[in-house]
């Protein structure tokens, strides 16, 4: 029990230590909210599956500070986004702009969906054509009945 308490204490203090590392934040909650909002749309280049808001990489911390400073200096979100793209390319944007090099990225899923839909329609048409195959003549029907044992043919 004491050990558990110790662990909990350690966890709490570790949290405090991380919090202390974080850059000055609490003095302006509105600005901080804007920072989080913008940085969660920007990719961290060090750990590429994390946003700048989530990442604890050194570079992410520096960039968050940079963005915070720029916001304090009155820059708009669009200006800051441009600043990031100028340095790191469209890759930093989780929502890349639509242009010649990204057309496949934007249109690809819809093209695949369309292809799938066309394929499905073609398949269903063919299946219906097969199901609507030639009707049995009365003679064939009688023969089928006989083969099935004459009991109306409820299969097993």
């Amino acid at each position, binding site marked *: 029990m004491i050990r558990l308490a110790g662990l909990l204490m350690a966890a709490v203090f570790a949290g405090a230590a991380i919090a202390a590392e974080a850059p000055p934040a609490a003095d302006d909650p509105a600005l901080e909210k804007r920072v989080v909002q913008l940085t969660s749309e920007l990719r961290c*280049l*060090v750990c590429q599956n994390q946003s700048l808001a989530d990442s604890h990489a*050194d570079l992410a911390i*520096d960039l968050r500070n940079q963005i915070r400073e720029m916001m304090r200096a009155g820059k708009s979100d669009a200006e800051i986004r441009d600043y990031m793209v100028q*340095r*790191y*390319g469209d*890759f930093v944007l989780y929502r890349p702009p639509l242009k010649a090099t990204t057309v496949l990225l934007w249109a690809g899923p819809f093209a695949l969906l369309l292809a799938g839909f066309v394929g499905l329609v073609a398949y269903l048409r063919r299946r219906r054509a097969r199901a609507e195959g030639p009707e049995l003549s009365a003679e064939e029907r009688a023969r089928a009945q006989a083969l099935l044992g004459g009991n109306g043919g409820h299969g097993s």
Partner: protein
Amino acid sequence: MARFLIPLAVFLVLVAFLAIGLSRDPHEVPSPLIDKPAPAFRLPALREPQKTVSRDDLRGQVWLLNVWASWCVSCREEHPVLVELAKSGVVPIYGLDYKDTREAALKWLAERGDPYTLSIVDADGKVGIDYGVYGVPETYVIDKQGVIRYKHIGPLTAQVLQDKILPLVRKLQA
């Protein structure tokens, strides 16, 4: 026959895409700074803290900008390659000592040799941000007009030097 050929074709296309995707390093993000003027800077020199060096001081020559740090593990890997290159004297290498302390950096160079014509200190990493540095070491080839012509991300190898950087440097020097 088409029943088998179509899935086979789809499968082969998928294999081709995956093969291309797997053979690429997702960490190598193409820099938007290629063929753009190198961002301006004015930073203190590593060996003479009172002296500052700016981008424009380096204009008129082809030069390499190598971003390094004493804390950077893969810089150790590429260091011998840089030392060799410096010995050959083909192209001056300027070091950007990124987010490092002066003492640690000087100790590092004393231990391993100093391939840099000059190193400048980017203690807070601001110039690094301007150059889009995200994974030290990085190496830029900058031409006589101060335009970035090539960027290599990660440790330089003799191979990269022979195949990419030196041919480009010779072309730019001509």
